[in-house]
């Protein structure tokens, strides 16, 4: 059984078919790149996987569990974490609190425990804090010194890193990264490539949407290509690089443009 199975998933809204019978799987430990021209449906697929978008047809299975009927927090509880294309951070929270929120699924403190504060609450907080610091350590000295600063004082690149950190600290099995290097310069993008490799070393499977071909080629074990909602290619990076259909898609010729 694959870690993630996407079976003939279609999404239509308002007469527009955003995804048409897309199928592929992810095995544990892989890094799979998801590419395609603008409007191909990549983020829509992510929204389906994280239960923000309903699937019109088809199945999504994570570790054998169907995702279509779940709500977003339930999908997260199964071990799926994601980042967003326009990074969604908690502007008025400190960096540390971001990560503590990321730890939400691994903590148990509810209303009564919050009020009564039995000893295990402090232990839980200490453990979460320790994990937070460890996760932030993956980013070298970019976020650790700013741990008590508000998130909206961070630079653009650091905000994207923070979003990834928040997803990582939840110890997901599958991490969905939506254009993590958008708006970054080549040096920062290279840092993200290293980061993704470190993430894989932690045992996390990664599905990565990217436009930056250097990043995709540098980090993916396999690549899936979408265009106009359909999967048009799947294979090893070298194969995709030479795939005629893929080239045509990017140059807009597949559907008779230009």
């Amino acid at each position, binding site marked *: 059984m694959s870690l993630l199975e996407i079976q003939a998933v279609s999404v239509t*809204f308002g007469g527009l078919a*955003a995804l048409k019978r897309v199928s592929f799987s992810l095995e544990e430990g892989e890094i799979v790149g998801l590419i*395609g021209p*603008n*409007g*191909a*449906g*990549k*983020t*829509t697929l992510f*929204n389906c996987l*994280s239960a*923000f*978008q309903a699937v019109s047809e088809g199945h999504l299975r994570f570790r054998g569990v169907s995702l279509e009927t779940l*709500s*977003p*927090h339930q999908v*997260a*509880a199964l071990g799926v*974490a*994601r980042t*967003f*294309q*326009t990074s*969604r*951070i*908690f*502007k*008025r*929270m400190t960096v540390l*609190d971001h990560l*503590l*929120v*990321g730890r*939400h*699924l691994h*903590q148990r*403190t*509810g*209303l009564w*425990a*919050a*009020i009564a*504060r039995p000893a295990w*609450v402090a232990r*839980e907080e200490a453990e979460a804090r320790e994990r937070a610091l460890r996760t932030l350590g993956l980013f070298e000295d970019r976020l650790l010194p700013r741990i008590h600063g508000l998130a909206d004082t961070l630079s653009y690149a650091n905000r994207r890193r923070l*979003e990834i950190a*928040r*997803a990582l600290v*939840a110890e997901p099995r599958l991490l969905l990264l*939506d*254009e993590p290097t958008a708006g970054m310069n080549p040096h920062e993008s290279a840092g993200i490539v290293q980061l993704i490799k470190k993430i894989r070393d932690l045992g996390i499977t990664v599905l990565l*949407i990217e436009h930056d071909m250097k990043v995709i080629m540098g980090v993916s074990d396999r690549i899936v290509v979408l265009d106009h909602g359909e999967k048009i290619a799947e294979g090893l990076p070298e194969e995709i690089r030479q795939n005629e259909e893929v080239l045509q898609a990017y140059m807009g010729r597949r559907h008779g443009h230009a």
Partner: protein
Amino acid sequence: MPLYDFVPRRDNWYVWLPVLAALLLFPLLVRSEYILNIAVYAGIYIILTSSLNITNGYTGLFSFGHAAFYGIGAYTAAILATRLGLSFWLTLPLAGIVAGVFGAAIALPTLRLTGIFLALVTIGFQEITYLVTLNWISLTRGPMGIPGIPPPAIGGVALSGNLGYYYLILALDVIVLFLLSRIVTSRVGRAFVAIREDELAAQSAGIPTFRMKILSFVIATFFAGIAGAFFAHHARFVSADSFRLDETFVILTMLIVGGMGSLVGPVLGAVLLVVLPEASRFLAEYRGVVYGLILIGVILFRPEGIAGVPGIIQTWGALSREGAPSASEEPAA
């Protein structure tokens, strides 16, 4: 450290302990019934603003019906005290529970709404509550209100004069603020703030946002009910007219002026706006004008109020009903 970050803890005792000591000594130095009465009202409003802060400030919900729960608590205490002879020590928690239950009942169908829709639906429920209270004469005596609510009794001795009420509300405020501080500095409080800042990101981090919003609402309405019970046993008379939209606006104004999203803000706002109109006869007569002008001034020149987290008001609620990151919302991928 910015004022809005202040949380009373063991290690910053030198900040709050003197204040507490001053508050304990205060009535022994100022033996005026009139001033103590104002202080008692400040104490009641501290609970009201602090509880509204949980939903509107920490969780970013646009609740505009707080006075209704204040009223439900007040009427619950009044009815239990005058019909069943229950003492203040029983009516207080029961009033909170009843208000909390009503809060849950109203929250369930309405918390899917956001922004102005949530505001309007909470106003609608508030007015319906008022009208039912006014018309259900067999339960509430309708427009005649419920008089004769007995004062709290400590060790068999009934309170008379504002001195006893002052210490009682002071103790109650300390307890309430302590409970609220425990809540907001915990995993629960962090979840509330995450929901306020970005509900979708909060969901993707595993927070069951709908459930948490209901929890936030119930906590707020519970404490509003507690404030209502205290009010009932202090004023010794309740009438439905005290618990309408006007009253919600007063509480909201105090909260905004004091500042949302912090523990200190609501306290400062309540004290300031209770005390200020009493400073002069002129101000007292034009209380509404004073409140309105201060509210407008704050919004125009310092929206975070005295000690609030900056930026909450500007991003408070959205004019849409759902907020899923649809493919059309993000630049096409």
